[in-house]
């Protein structure tokens, strides 16, 4: 009996090989086609749902699906970049104007120099940077994204992307977890619960960090605006180029997600993608008031508070590192100097790498820490938003290549502490958590290294 069984299994294996991997998909497709044909015979629809159908035919069509998706994303990025510039300048003028008064207040108190150095140049200035650089893009991006969610567009994205994810051996719902990742990677990791198969769920969890979360998004916006947006960001062409760069980075993140998913599903997480039914809900008119309140209160302020809680001590720490000297050199220079040789190889510098390491608890504080480190020991610079930032970076030897590498490293590097803890909680395994840390980091280092060496080899910088 079991011999006969074995024989049948052998035969089945052989036939499977002949039919190729498409067999499963073909079987499912035949089923769905028959179901559709039968349903069409039996059901007559009133005209009401026709609107949804017609919109779906365009938004999820083979020809227009992807271009519309890209255009929408690009539009959202452009609105964010263009719109964030003005309030950003306003906020930074306000906050750094206040700094002068605070200093005067401390002088009037006859407070010791180290105290107001620590509190003002350290804690306060980092907080001011976090608020002025991070808040405006968040406050614009979040409502726009929630608007798309409320309209019912996100399931359509999952529908469009399903084929791609199937081809790399992952689950079509992974694009929904990625969409959540735009808000927060920890939320994206939790969202992976909607995927039933443990194998595909792990893939979704491990790759979620390649979606730039909203803590890293302002970093991308700032870098793109400074190094690729041209001299004046307010000029239309400049903001268009910067949006294109941000879009490119996000697409690179999607590409890396697909590549890593493929890699995982062909090595440690082998298996076939499972089929699923995705319901496309009817389009609804968005509730604009609710969206604004919800995205500002629930998301923007929440993220900002988290950033501020971590930024304040980090700012103080940086100030101490920059102002306490050992052997005539500040600790910051020691640490940065120690990291520098390696950082140089991947087109960064010691300070940037240190900022990414210190940014482990929250990615929001990376750019503020970099700025702080450059400014803490130096003299006061006239600080007004983007052009000031460009000047600071230029004085510290940044080129467009440095900007590009910060973009790449920010997109690809290890997830933040909260996300790592969430991965640990969701997978219940230290091993997968470690992989969730090591894999992106390795990819970030390799890609930055290759880009840097290639650009230097050709002599573009």
């Amino acid at each position, binding site marked *: 009996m079991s011999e006969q069984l074995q024989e049948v299994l052998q035969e089945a294996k052989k036939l499977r090989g002949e039919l190729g991997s498409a067999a499963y998909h073909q079987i499912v497709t035949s089923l769905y086609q028959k179901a559709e044909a039968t349903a069409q015979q039996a059901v007559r629809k009133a005209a009401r749902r026709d609107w949804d159908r017609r919109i779906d035919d365009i938004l999820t069509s083979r020809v227009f699906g992807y271009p519309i998706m890209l255009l929408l994303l690009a539009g959202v990025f452009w609105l964010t970049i263009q719109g964030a510039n003005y309030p950003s300048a306003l906020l930074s003028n306000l906050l750094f104007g206040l700094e002068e008064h605070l200093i005067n207040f401390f002088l009037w108190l006859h407070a010791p120099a180290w105290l107001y150095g620590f509190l003002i140049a350290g804690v306060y200035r980092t907080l001011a940077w976090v608020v002025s650089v991070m808040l405006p893009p968040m406050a614009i991006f979040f409502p726009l994204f929630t608007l798309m969610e409320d309209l019912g567009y996100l399931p359509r994205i999952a529908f469009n992307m399903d084929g791609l994810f199937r081809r790399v051996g992952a689950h079509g719902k992974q694009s929904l977890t990625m969409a959540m990742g735009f808000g927060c990677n920890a939320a994206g990791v939790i969202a992976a619960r909607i995927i039933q198969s443990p194998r595909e769920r792990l893939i979704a969890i491990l790759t979620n960090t390649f979606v730039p979360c909203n803590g890293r998004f302002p970093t991308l916006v700032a870098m793109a605006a400074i190094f690729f947006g041209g001299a004046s960001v307010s000029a239309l062409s400049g903001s268009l180029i910067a949006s294109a760069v941000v879009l490119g980075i996000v697409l690179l993140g999607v590409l890396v997600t697909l590549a890593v998913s493929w890699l995982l599903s062909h090595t440690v997480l082998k298996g076939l993608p499972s089929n699923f*039914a995705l319901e496309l809900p009817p389009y609804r008119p968005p509730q604009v008031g609710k969206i604004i309140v919800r995205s500002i209160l629930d998301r923007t302020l929440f993220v900002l508070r988290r950033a501020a809680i971590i930024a304040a001590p980090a700012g103080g720490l940086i100030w101490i590192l920059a102002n306490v000297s050992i052997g005539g050199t500040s600790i910051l220079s020691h640490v940065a100097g120690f990291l520098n040789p390696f950082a140089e190889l991947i087109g960064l510098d010691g300070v940037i790498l240190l900022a990414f390491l210190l940014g482990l608890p929250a990615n929001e504080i990376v750019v503020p820490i970099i700025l702080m480190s450059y400014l803490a020991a130096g003299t006061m610079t006239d600080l007004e938003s983007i052009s000031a930032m460009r000047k600071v970076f230029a004085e510290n030897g940044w080129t467009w290549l440095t900007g590009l590498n910060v973009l790449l490293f920010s997109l690809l590097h290890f997830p933040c502490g909260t996300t790592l803890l969430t991965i640990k909680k969701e997978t219940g395994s230290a091993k997968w958590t470690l992989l969730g840390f090591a894999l992106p980091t390795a990819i970030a280092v390799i890609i930055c290294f290759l880009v840097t060496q290639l650009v230097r080899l050709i002599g573009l910088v």
Partner: protein
Amino acid sequence: MNCVDYVIALAGNPNTGKSTVFNALTGLNQHTGNWPGKTVAQATGSYVYNHKKYTLADLPGTYSLLAASVEEQIARDFLLFGNPQATIVVVDATCLERNLNLVLQVLEITDQVVVCVNLMDEARRKGLALDTAILERELGVPVIPTVARSARGLEELKEAVADVAACRIKTHPSRVIYPEAIEGAIKTLSAKLQPLLSRSNALRRRWIALRLLDGDDTVLAALTDYFVKNRREEGTV
């Protein structure tokens, strides 16, 4: 409780009112028990119709039987090994197309099917006109429109189930025809399966061949499991 006349399986997508149908049919005569295939507690209940006793097994709500999840495996294993005399598939009238996918898959395992189109009232409210006569003709099995919440159509459902279970109605289920290459492979495999499963019918062999082709490992596991348990007598799968 050993005087059960018929065992009936109750399948359906999630959120189709399957539980409402189950409760409406069985009332308080419910208990949980273990069924062959998987040792998972399953809600069962019973009702009496025309002096015959029917035991209803409430399968987990699933979108398909392709065994991607545990629920799908349980539902599939019961249809395969539980030997129900009839299977009711509850479908949601407001999204028939998605629900028919499961109906077609059940029809690949068994001929003894009654389709219960539930939520007819909601469909009407949404402006959907559903012709159950056409659906019955297309599927080749009895199709009963119901509104389980207000117990409408349940008598007709019981009658159809009784007729199908007692083979008073001969069903002519419509089957999915696959692309030529796959149909060819099915034929080859079915022939190979014949000596192994000589007591099973051609439909069952075709279904097993299909699962072997789409690489469903769980059916292999269930199959070998079954063979090991029934080593003495020949498999009746």
